[in-house]
C-alpha cells in the first residue's frame, strides 16, 4: 500500500479579485522508499498542493479532497494530531535556506528543539543526536559548528542543516520544496549527491518539488508534471526523459540548456507565459503555448492512462493508453 495517497485534491484561495484555483483535482501516490518529483513552473500549484495536506495553507486557502498518510486523511485531521505527524513522520524542507532558519538561535538550539519535542529526549541526548545528523549530511567538524549561528554558515551548508533537521526524527516521508534552487550549481550538485546517499541508505520516501527537470533526472523514481494546477503527465523517470508524451513535458525538456551537446544558435523556450489562474482558458490549459495545439484543444482534453501507471492529459493518445472516465468531482468544479 502507498505511504501517501492523494485523491482529487483541490486548493482554492479567496482573493479580492475572485477565487484563485491553485490546484485542480490532483491525484497521485508515493510508495514506501520511493522518490516522487513534482515538476512545474511558478504558479503551477506544486507548492500549494503540498502545503495544503501539511496543513500550512494561508488563511484564505481552502483544500478539498483526500490525502491519506497510511490510513489517516491529513486533510480531516485536527491540528493537534497533525502536529504529531508533522516533523516526526513527515518532514518538510523549504526553498530558501536563508530564511528558514531562525537567525537568533544557534543551530544546536534549533535542532535539539525538534527531538526534545517529538521524542522527549533530554538536552544532552538531543545534542549528540543532532551532531550525528550534521555529520550524516557531511558538515565538517559538527561538534564545533553546532554551536554557531545560521549567518556563520554558507548557503549550501544551511541547506544541509535544513536537511539534517528534516531527518532528525527519521521521518517516513521527506518533502523538499525546491531545495537547491537558490544555490550555486556547484552546491546544487553536492545537495543532489547527498539526497542520493540518503535514498541509498534509508527506506524514507521523498517528494521533490522543482521547476527544473534536469535537477531530478538523477534522483527521481517517478515524475508528475504539473501545469496550471493539474497533472499533465505522470510516468517513471525513464519514460519522462526518454519518451515524453505531453507537449508541455517535451517543451520543459527542450528548454534545459545543455553542455553535453553542440550548441544551437537558438535556445528552445516554451513561448508565452503561464495562464492567469483567475481566468483559466476553456479546454486545454496549455493550449495557448502549445506548438501542437489544434481546434480539438478547445475541448477539455481526455486523460490517458496505461496499465503501468503512465498518464497524460492531452488530445494526443499515448501508447497502450486508455481514456479514463473523468471522476465526477473534477467536472463539478469546471
Amino acid at each position: 500500500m502507498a505511504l501517501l495517497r492523494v485523491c482529487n485534491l483541490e486548493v482554492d484561495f479567496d482573493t479580492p479579485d475572485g477565487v484563485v484555483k491553485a490546484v485542480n483535482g490532483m491525484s497521485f501516490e508515493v510508495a514506501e522508499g520511493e522518490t516522487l518529483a513534482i515538476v512545474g513552473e511558478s504558479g503551477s500549484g506544486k507548492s500549494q498542493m503540498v502545503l495544503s495536506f501539511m496543513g500550512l495553507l494561508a488563511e484564505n486557502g481552502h483544500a478539498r479532497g483526500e490525502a491519506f498518510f497510511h490510513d489517516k486523511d491529513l486533510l480531516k485531521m485536527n491540528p493537534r494530531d497533525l502536529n504529531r505527524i508533522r516533523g516526526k513522520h513527515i518532514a518538510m524542507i523549504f526553498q530558501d535556506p536563508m530564511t528558514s532558519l531562525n537567525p537568533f538561535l544557534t543551530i544546536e538550539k534549533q535542532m535539539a528543539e525538534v527531538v526534545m519535542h517529538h521524542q522527549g529526549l533530554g538536552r544532552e541526548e538531543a545534542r549528540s543526536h543532532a551532531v550525528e545528523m550534521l555529520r550524516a549530511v557531511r558538515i565538517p567538524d559538527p561538534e564545533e559548528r553546532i554551536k554557531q549561528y545560521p549567518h556563520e554558515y554558507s548557503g549550501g551548508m544551511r541547506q544541509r542543516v535544513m536537511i539534517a533537521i528534516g531527518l532528525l526524527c527519521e521521518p517516513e516521508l521527506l518533502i523538499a520544496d525546491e531545495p537547491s534552487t537558490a544555490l550555486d550549481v556547484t552546491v546544487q550538485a553536492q545537495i543532489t549527491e547527498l539526497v542520493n546517499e540518503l535514498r541509498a541508505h534509508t527506506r524514507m520516501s521523498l517528494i521533490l518539488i522543482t521547476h527544473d527537470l534536469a535537477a531530478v533526472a538523477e534522483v527521481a523514481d517517478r515524475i508528475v508534471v504539473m501545469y496550471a494546477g493539474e497533472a499533465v503527465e505522470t510516468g517513471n523517470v525513464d519514460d519522462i526523459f526518454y519518451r515524453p508524451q505531453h507537449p508541455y513535458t517535451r517543451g520543459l525538456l527542450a528548454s534545459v540548456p545543455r553542455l553535453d551537446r553542440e550548441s544551437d544558435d537558438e535556445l528552445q523556450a516554451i513561448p508565452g507565459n503561464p495562464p492567469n489562474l483567475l481566468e483559466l482558458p476553456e479546454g486545454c490549459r496549455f493550449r495557448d503555448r502549445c506548438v501542437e495545439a489544434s481546434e480539438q484543444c478547445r475541448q477539455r482534453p481526455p486523460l490517458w492512462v496505461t496499465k503501468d501507471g503512465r498518464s497524460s492529459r492531452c488530445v494526443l493518445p499515448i501508447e497502450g493508453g486508455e481514456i479514463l472516465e473523468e471522476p465526477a468531482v473534477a467536472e463539478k468544479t469546471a
Partner: protein
Amino acid sequence: MSKPVLRVQDLAVTFTSYTGGLLSRRERQLRAVDGISFDLEPGETLGVVGESGSGKSTLARAILGLIKASRGRVMWRGEDLTVLDEEALRQKRKEIQIVFQDPVASLNPRMTAGDIIAEPLWTFYPNMERLQVEERTRGMMKMVGLLPNQINKYPHEFSGGQCQRIGIARSLVLNPKLLVCDEPVSALDVSIQAQIINLLKDLQKKLGLALIFIAHDLSVVRHISDRVMVMYMGQAMEVSEKASLYRRPLHPYTNALMKSVPVPDPKLAAAARQDSWLKGDMPSPYQRPKGCIFHNRCPLRVKRCEADVPALRRMENGDWVACHRAEELNLSIQGIT
C-alpha cells in the same frame, strides 16, 4: 579586430569592515574584485561566471561606477570612468545600462510598466514631449515582446519573465552601447530563461550592443557569449573563446563548474556524477589561501600550487588561464557525452 569600446584594466574593489568591540576595533580588508582586466568590442558578449562570492556582481557595479574602484581603470571609449565626477558619470549612464537579477524586486510596484520604462527618458530629457515619450515607450515594449496595451499595468500584473522584459526595455530606452546583465535569468523558470536569453541575443544583433552577461551557471551563458570569463574569489581563472572553453576548459575550476550543470538525462547524469569532484565551499574571503587561491578545492593540485601564485597567462590559442598545469591537463567534458 575592431577597437574595443570597453577596456577594463587591473580593476579592483576592496571593502573595509571592522570587527571587535569599540576599543579592540580591527580593520579587515575584503578583496571582492582583485585585478580584473578585459577588453570588449562593439557588439561582443562577454559571459562572466562564478559562484556566489566570486565578485562577479561587484565587478558589474564597479564598471558602472555604482561602487568605487580601489584600483585600476575602466576605459569607456577612451575615457577613464573611475576618475569622473558624479555628474559626468551620470551622463555616461546613457551609454552604459544594467539589468538586475530579481525582475520583480527591481521594479517599483507603485509605478506602471510604462512609467518604469519611460523614467530614464524623463530623467535625462526632461523637455521631451509627452507624446514622444509615450511613443518611444510603446516602441520599446513591442521590441522586448510586451503588448503596448499593457502600458498602464502594474508589475504585479505581469509574470516573472514579463517583469524581466520590462527591466530590459527600461535599460534600453536610452539607446545604450553597453548592457551589463547581472544574473538576468537566475530567478526565472527554466522554461522562461530561454525566452529572455534569446531576446537579449536578438536585441544585441539589432542594436549592435556590447553585452556583459553574468551568471553562476556555465550552461546559461553559453548561447549568448562570444567569450567567457570564469571568476573565483575576485580573480579571473580563465578567459576563453566560447568554442574552445566548452570543448576543452583550461582551468580545473571551469571544469568543475561544467560538471556541476545537471544533465536532463538519467543515465548520463548518473555517469557524470561519478566524477563530480568539486568538494566543499569557497573559503572565507578574509582567509585567502596562499599560492593558487583555488588549490584547497582543486582535485588536481600539486605541491607547487600551494606556494606559487599562478599568473593569468596567454596560451597558444589566445585563451587566458591562471593555472600552473594548464598545458599538461587535458580537461574535457567529453566524458559526459
